[in-house]
């Protein structure tokens, strides 16, 4: 059973067209799901329906198999937390007091935060590296800092699922990285993250799964490598895009470059949105360098899931520096190998590269 699941979700605003139809997604602990789509395709609406702030007109959201609508708010919001767009957030309190508000669902109507609540708030801020903001009023900090405070507020509820509405919009390069890194780190610790984004590249670099919405109401959900493709981007956004790779000493990162407008999105002559899966069998090898032992579980889990591809495996501890090198040999369909390689590339703090035959 998945942690969170949407079954056949559909929604239309009063007197408006059907903007969401037949949405199906599921997400497991520790996964990141990116929701992509052009302006007006219903990204925020989807999140709001999923969290029961708006009601699905058809279909439903399930948390651990239980319909979200039937879960009492105080219980639901201990498991799920919401990070609004920074520009729509209230900013009257200091950062620390804002983070404390995240404990609301666990504090009685006539009580104030306990020492325990305060410790949790302090810990969350420390973990996100924003302890220095604690006593500053939220209207006096930068947009990037405010976004981090809002993430901390959400994390103070100790949720299993984090829902972020365009967390990196309106931020500069560095702050985008800070926010995305924070999300990646939280996912590595087991929190399921769902985020809306305008950047297909961020989906490719951060999210294992993606949902792409197009304006005509169609959508596609699956592994990011199968969803965020040049064809699907052309269809959903009406943009001719090229997906390329940028190699760093540590990793190979995917990037998306928009090269031109391809006519109206969702035009009839564009091919249907679909997952493309080249199925040639090939050989490949993946090399991973772990800088610490922290991510070993995630790496092993990924290899276990793709066990059928593995034809050889070698692990080399480098005792002096406490680093660890893993090398695996694979044989299988190119798409599967690429999926595993992508999955590994999403794990923070490791170097990983794939070499194909």
């Amino acid at each position, binding site marked *: 059973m998945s942690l969170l699941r949407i079954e056949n979700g559909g929604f239309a605003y009063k007197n408006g067209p059907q903007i969401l139809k037949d949405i199906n997604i599921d997400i497991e602990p520790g996964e990141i799901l990116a929701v992509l789509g052009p302006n007006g395709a219903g990204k925020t609406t989807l999140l709001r329906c999923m969290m029961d*702030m708006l009601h699905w007109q058809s279909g439903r959201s399930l948390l651990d198999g239980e319909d979200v609508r039937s879960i009492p708010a105080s219980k*639901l919001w201990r498991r799920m937390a919401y990070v*609004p767009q920074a520009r729509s957030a*209230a900013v*009257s*309190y*200091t950062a620390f007091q804002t983070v404390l508000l995240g404990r609301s*669902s666990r*504090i009685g109507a006539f009580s104030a935060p306990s020492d325990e609540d305060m410790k949790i708030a302090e810990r969350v801020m420390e973990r996100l590296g924003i302890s220095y903001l604690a006593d500053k009023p939220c209207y006096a900090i930068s947009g990037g800092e405010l976004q981090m405070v809002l993430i901390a507020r959400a994390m103070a509820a100790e949720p299993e699922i984090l829902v972020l509405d365009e967390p990196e919009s309106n931020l500069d390069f560095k702050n985008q990285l800070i926010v995305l890194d924070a999300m990646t780190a939280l996912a590595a610790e087991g929190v399921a993250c769902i985020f809306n984004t305008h950047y297909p590249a961020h989906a490719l670099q951060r999210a294992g799964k993606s949902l792409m919405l197009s304006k005509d109401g169609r959508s596609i959900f699956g592994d990011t490598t199968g969803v965020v493709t040049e064809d699907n981007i052309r269809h959903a956004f009406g943009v001719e895009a090229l997906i390329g790779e940028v190699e760093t000493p540590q990793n190979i990162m995917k990037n998306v470059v928009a090269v031109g407008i391809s006519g109206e999105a969702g035009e009839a002559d564009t091919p249907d949105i679909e997952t493309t899966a080249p199925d040639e069998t090939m050989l490949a090898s993946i090399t991973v360098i772990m800088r610490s032992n922290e991510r070993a579980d995630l790496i092993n889990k990924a290899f276990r899931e793709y066990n059928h591809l593995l034809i050889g495996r070698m692990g080399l501890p480098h005792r002096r520096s406490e680093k660890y090198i893993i090398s695996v040999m694979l044989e299988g369909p190119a798409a599967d190998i690429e999926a595993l390689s992508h999955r590994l590339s999403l794990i923070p703090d490791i170097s990983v590269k794939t070499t194909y035959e």
Partner: protein
Amino acid sequence: MSLRRDGRLGAAWIVILIVLPFAAAIIALGIGRMSIAPGEVFDVLRAAISGKHASSELIEKTVMQLRLPRIILACLVGAGLSVSGCAFQSLFANPLATPDTLGVASGAAFGAALGILLGFNLIGIQLMGLAMGGFAVALTWLAGSGKDRGGLSYIVLSGIMIGSLFSALISFVKFAADAESQLPAITYWLMGGLDKANYRTLALGAPVIIAGIILFMLIRWRMNLLPLSDDEAKASGVNIRLLRGITVVAATAVTASCVSMCGQVGWVGLLIPHMCRMLFGNNHLSIIPASVSLGAVFMIIVDTMARSISAAEIPVSILTAMIGAPFFIVLMRRSGGWRI
């Protein structure tokens, strides 16, 4: 002498905020046409508490029968108006939302004037004030809060319109009132004053105000959720509709009780919460108790001035307006840079 990290008041502030209203009350008890030293005031109070009579009957009567009820009323009205002003500001996430600007005070005043016109007793007047105050805030809410709660001016503009509507209705009540007896009563009452204070009116009006203040004190941490946007508030896991509902009912009831006891005393609900927000920030853990305490102190001072500056008593609302209006202008001019 500072705030704790979570926004709670430090011990020093707690002591100051408790002592200040009592100190102001004791000094005020001695001020008036007959000057009484604080020591003598103490003696009278001590005698009253232990059930004995003080040495001078005149002093005792002045303190216990004339000044004390009035000062208790000033305390309650000041505390009540400023705490409900504070609640309204947070509820509408708007620094300019107060009982006056939302039309609540005008609505309650209309209800009370209507009550006087119809010859109701104090309870009836109070209930009319409550009903019309609630009606006014509901109208303001309907007229001024749309999808965009961020627009600061909408709520205040619609509050001004609703307020002027009820002012017109008050004029209509005056027009309809009997010019010999009712009209002077209504007019004088509308000017606002605490001179009608006695223990009987206190017994009727005080419970609502005290209950409202206790309620706000109890839920004050949770009130921090009030200024949040709808989605943020829902995502807190707290029943935000219930919280908003309780807040608006309690703040309206407190305002209406104050208005029915002493007329339309303006500006307190704007002035004091803002002073508290400047001193302590926006966290309700500190600004609710601070509003209660400083509101009481402010009202005691202003009322003491009203009854002792000149031989004839000045209606207290004239003094609060003379202090409040310039303050409001200053606030409005700098309100771009601050939020709730």
